[in-house]
């Protein structure tokens, strides 16, 4: 094998040696033959002559030998590359323009692809991620992942198709130190998590796979590289250090590395604790059958086990568990809801899919946009090549007449464009480095930071390489085929620059390319317009609350729960007393925060339905509605009199009133929450609808109840503060006040309501910003392309124009003629582009809000922009045409 490789490669790298050897071998042959002839009695001189003669042309034999060793292609390639480099160096402006076009096009594609790679394609940095599967349940695209601990135990006991099954539960933790407390992202995991998932460790060890029972050795923590860096400055002696997590002292035993952020890509992970500690916090956790939250189960499939076999096994165990009487509480009319009826597997090699789902479509759309953008760039380069090819007609004719094959010439042209594309691709990689950083920053601008590690990896490099190569071929194909179809005789007979004869045939190709450019461009501009207007529509939407002038933050009260309400009383009084603060309140939810609690309700007099009645519930203090700017339409709001001791009351929004009290006045009526069916609450007010989960969805049914009347004090609350001026300017004072009231209160995630609303629009903003960027660049490229074609046309017809001027043509008329021709080309492109835009509307309609994908305003605006661009492109060449000096032009003939 190795010898074989040496045989194949040696001539490539030791070319000089190869040639010498070949010459030596042939010389030996001729000499030996001559010796033999001499021995048979022929005189030496005659023998040598005959030996040479019979052997034939040494040079052609050598050439054949080289070809036999696959060297001829290489030689020709080398020739072509050398030639291409020379041609490129001779026309630096042309080369720079082409490379720049390609660099932008390829760079944009690389950038989007590397983001796509990070979001959609990348596997978790663990051992054999493809073997990992979530043990999920339910049907459809969105299977449920949450489970109970007993289900996890049952899976571990009954399944033998997995080499290991483990579980994790993501939540936030309070990490305290002398400087104060912080909320960090963490997870509780089963003891076998690190070994089953195959988590890479840079220091120490993972948890040991003992049964998950709390004991002394449970007080340990494994931290991620990010947390190690942030908190410990990458201290190599971090193992054995202690950390106060949720009020417990735990010892650091390991540091995970290699970008491992848990099984939830896009979100940071700081610490991992053994699930045994959760059992310390919540002793019933291990036996509880009715809490289907947070605990995700993941297993590593044994080698050779078929997916179908594994799914069947999981389904059997799952159904067995669900038939347990302990699960009767989830049944409706004796039946399990769809989401809990079957067990199934979900590939876990890329982690949970929230980020993928959120951006999958958007990234595909962007990929489509950059592909169109690259087409525009390609058309530009092809056009430039065409224009230049026309000046090389004579050279081509000469080469064909001396016997060069057309295929050979086409290959040479292609070498040139591929070389351009490869250089363009290399520059494009640099462009993409910058662009990727910008895009990742766009993603990060949200409040819940999306952690993206977009990088230039092997996959991205391969993509860029392939795109460059393809681009080179696409750019070069039309020009090379056109340019090599040359009528030899007339071209050679002509004694001038040799372009007039074939130029007329070359121009239409250029026009067609320019037309395609305009068409692609209008497609991009129309999409951009739609996306930008969607973003604006959402930004300016009346969501039912007033987003300006509100500061909010999370308050973690776990550990100080007994006096929560009095604590808030004192805190709110102090906050309200701050200068510039108009109102302050706390609540369990806030508009467009990612958390919302949907609770089942019962309405007396209304029959039970198969689908439970629900209301998104927010527990609030009296000033909440005023602070957030939600109007009470009828009745009253929550007051200080609605205390724990007072009668239970609630406010509902219009959506709930419409849905559940369609024929009656809800004021004064009662309903009860499923969790406390014998504790009716009286509706005392109706408030305005507000968008809650996101801006696109209409307002959900909502109920507001006094925080003071909550059944159990919630641990995590949102504080909202309405300020007279810029809410951010009050941040420091607010933080001071909170610390002053109680050092136990962890304040986190300080943001304005406006930022919170913006954060829900990350996808829209990314799409609008990027498409605008690509749109503007596409316009520039199309403008340059159009300019190139028109300008080339004017140069080509300089003589004709000169003659017409000499014959008395009006210069203004000539100018108008050039502009008219340009507009004809772009009008044709615009029509094609509009048709394409109308046909492809369903590609973008999923992203739009508040306008139709055929929005006439956007389409008309795109057309106007394109027409204006065409005018700009035509202006200079038109002026040049009108300024042609007939005497000079005719003299050069």
């Amino acid at each position: 094998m190795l010898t074989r490789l040496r045989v194949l490669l040696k001539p490539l790298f030791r070319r000089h040696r190869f040639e010498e050897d070949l010459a030596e071998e042939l010389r030996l042959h001729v000499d030996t033959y001559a010796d033999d002839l001499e021995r048979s009695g022929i005189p030496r001189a005659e023998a040598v002559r005959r030996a040479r003669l019979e052997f034939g042309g040494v040079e052609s034999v050598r050439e054949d030998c080289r070809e036999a060793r696959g060297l001829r292609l290489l030689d020709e390639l080398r020739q072509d590359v050398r030639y291409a480099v020379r041609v490129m160096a001779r026309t630096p402006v042309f080369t720079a323009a082409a490379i720049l076009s390609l660099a932008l096009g390829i760079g944009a594609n690389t950038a989007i692809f590397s983001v796509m790679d990070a979001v959609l394609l990348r596997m978790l940095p663990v051992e054999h991620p493809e073997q990992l599967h979530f043990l999920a349940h339910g049907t459809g695209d969105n299977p449920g992942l949450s489970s109970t601990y007993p289900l996890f135990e049952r899976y571990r006991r009954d399944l033998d198709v997995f080499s290991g099954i483990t579980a994790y539960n993501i939540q936030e933790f309070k990490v305290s130190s002398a400087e104060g407390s912080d909320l960090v992202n963490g997870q509780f995991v089963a003891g076998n998590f690190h070994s089953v998932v195959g988590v890479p460790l840079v220091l120490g060890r993972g948890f040991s796979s003992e049964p998950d029972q709390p004991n002394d050795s449970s007080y340990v923590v494994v931290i991620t590289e990010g947390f190690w860096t942030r908190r410990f400055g990458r201290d190599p002696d971090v193992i054995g250090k202690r950390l106060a997590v949720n009020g417990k002292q735990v010892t650091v035993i390991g540091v995970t590395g290699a970008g491992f952020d848990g099984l939830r890509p896009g979100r940071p992970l700081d610490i991992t604790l053994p699930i045994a500690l959760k059992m310390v916090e919540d002793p019933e956790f291990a036996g509880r059958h009715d809490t289907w939250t947070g605990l995700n189960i993941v297993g590593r499939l044994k080698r050779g086990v078929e997916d179908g076999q594994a799914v069947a096994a999981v389904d059997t165990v799952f159904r067995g568990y669900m038939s347990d009487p302990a699960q009767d509480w989830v049944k409706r009319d004796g039946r399990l809801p769809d989401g809990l009826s079957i067990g199934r597997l979900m590939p876990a090699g890329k982690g949970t899919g929230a980020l993928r789902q959120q951006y999958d479509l958007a990234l595909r759309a962007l990929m489509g946009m950059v592909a169109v953008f690259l087409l525009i760039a390609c058309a530009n380069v092809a056009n430039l090549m065409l224009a230049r090819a026309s000046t090389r007609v004579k050279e081509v004719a000469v080469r064909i007449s001396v016997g060069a094959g057309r295929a050979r010439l086409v290959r040479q042209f292609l070498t040139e464009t591929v070389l351009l594309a490869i250089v363009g691709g290399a520059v494009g990689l640099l462009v993409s480095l910058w662009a990727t950083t910008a895009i990742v920053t766009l993603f990060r601008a949200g409040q819940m930071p999306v952690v993206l590690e977009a990088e230039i990896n092997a996959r991205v490099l391969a993509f860029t390489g392939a795109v460059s190569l393809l681009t080179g071929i696409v750019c070069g194909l039309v020009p090379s085929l056109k340019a090599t179809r040359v009528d030899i005789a007339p071209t050679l007979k002509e004694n001038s620059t040799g372009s007039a004869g074939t130029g007329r045939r070359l121009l239409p190709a250029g026009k067609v390319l320019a037309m395609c450019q305009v068409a692609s461009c209008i497609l991009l501009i129309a999409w951009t317009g739609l996306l930008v207007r969607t973003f604006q529509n959402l930004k300016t939407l009346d969501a039912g609350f007033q987003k300006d002038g509100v500061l909010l933050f999370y308050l973690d009260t776990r550990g100080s729960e007994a006096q929560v309400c009095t604590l808030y009383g004192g805190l709110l009084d102090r906050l309200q007393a701050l200068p510039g603060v108009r109102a302050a309140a706390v609540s369990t939810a806030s508009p467009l925060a990612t958390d919302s609690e949907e609770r089942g309700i019962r309405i007396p007099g209304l029959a039970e339905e198969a689908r439970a009645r629900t209301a998104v519930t927010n527990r609030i203090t009296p000033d909440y509605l005023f602070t957030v700017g939600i109007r009470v339409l009828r009745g009253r709001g929550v007051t200080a009199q609605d205390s724990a001791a007072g009668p239970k009351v609630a406010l509902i929004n219009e959506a709930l009133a419409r849905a559940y009290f369609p024929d009656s006045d809800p004021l004064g009526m009662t309903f009860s929450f499923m969790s406390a069916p014998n504790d009716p609450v009286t509706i005392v007010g109706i408030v305005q609808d507000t968008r809650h989960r996101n801006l696109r969805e209409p307002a959900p049914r909502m109920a507001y109840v006094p925080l003071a009347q909550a059944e159990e004090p919630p641990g995590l609350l949102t504080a909202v503060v309405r300020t007279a001026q810029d809410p951010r300017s009050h941040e420091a004072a607010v933080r001071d006040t909170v610390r002053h009231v109680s050092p136990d209160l962890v304040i986190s995630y300080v943001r304005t309501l406006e930022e919170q609303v913006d954060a829900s629009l990350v996808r829209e903003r990314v799409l609008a910003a990027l498409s605008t960027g690509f749109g503007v660049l596409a316009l520039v490229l199309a403008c340059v392309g159009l300019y190139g074609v028109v300008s080339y046309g004017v140069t080509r017809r300089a003589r004709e124009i000169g003659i017409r001027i000499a014959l008395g043509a009006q210069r203004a008329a000539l100018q108008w003629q050039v502009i008219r021709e340009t507009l004809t080309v772009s009008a044709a492109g615009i029509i094609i582009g509009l048709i394409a835009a109308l046909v492809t509307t369903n590609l973008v309609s999923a992203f739009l809000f508040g306008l139709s994908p055929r929005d006439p305003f956007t389409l008309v605006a795109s057309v106007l922009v394109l027409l204006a661009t065409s005018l700009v492109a035509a202006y200079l060449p038109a002026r040049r045409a009108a300024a042609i000096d007939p005497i000079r032009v005719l003299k050069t003939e």
Partner: protein
Amino acid sequence: MGKTADLLPGTLDMLILKAVSLKPLHGYGVLLRIRQISKEALDIPQGSLYPALYRLEHQGLILAEWGESDNKRKAKYYTLTQAGRKRLREEAAGWNRLAAAIAAALDATPDEV
């Protein structure tokens, strides 16, 4: 030199393989050996010998090594590789089948039809 026959296309490679299968040879030696073993009936055009050798080497059927010729000059000797041996066997078998078939066809008499 006696009467020489024209080479059928595709047979040159087979003959070269056969020649070097007997003993390592340099290029000129291959020429002589083929003439010898074909009882002077086959003469290879000298110009096409070397490209064929290089092609066979490229395909990994023969291996080239520098050695010394009878007249004490540096010469490139070709030997058959394992793959070459296999190829020679296949080609020889194919050729024999073809030759036998053609011979049988040409021997046919009116009675047999």
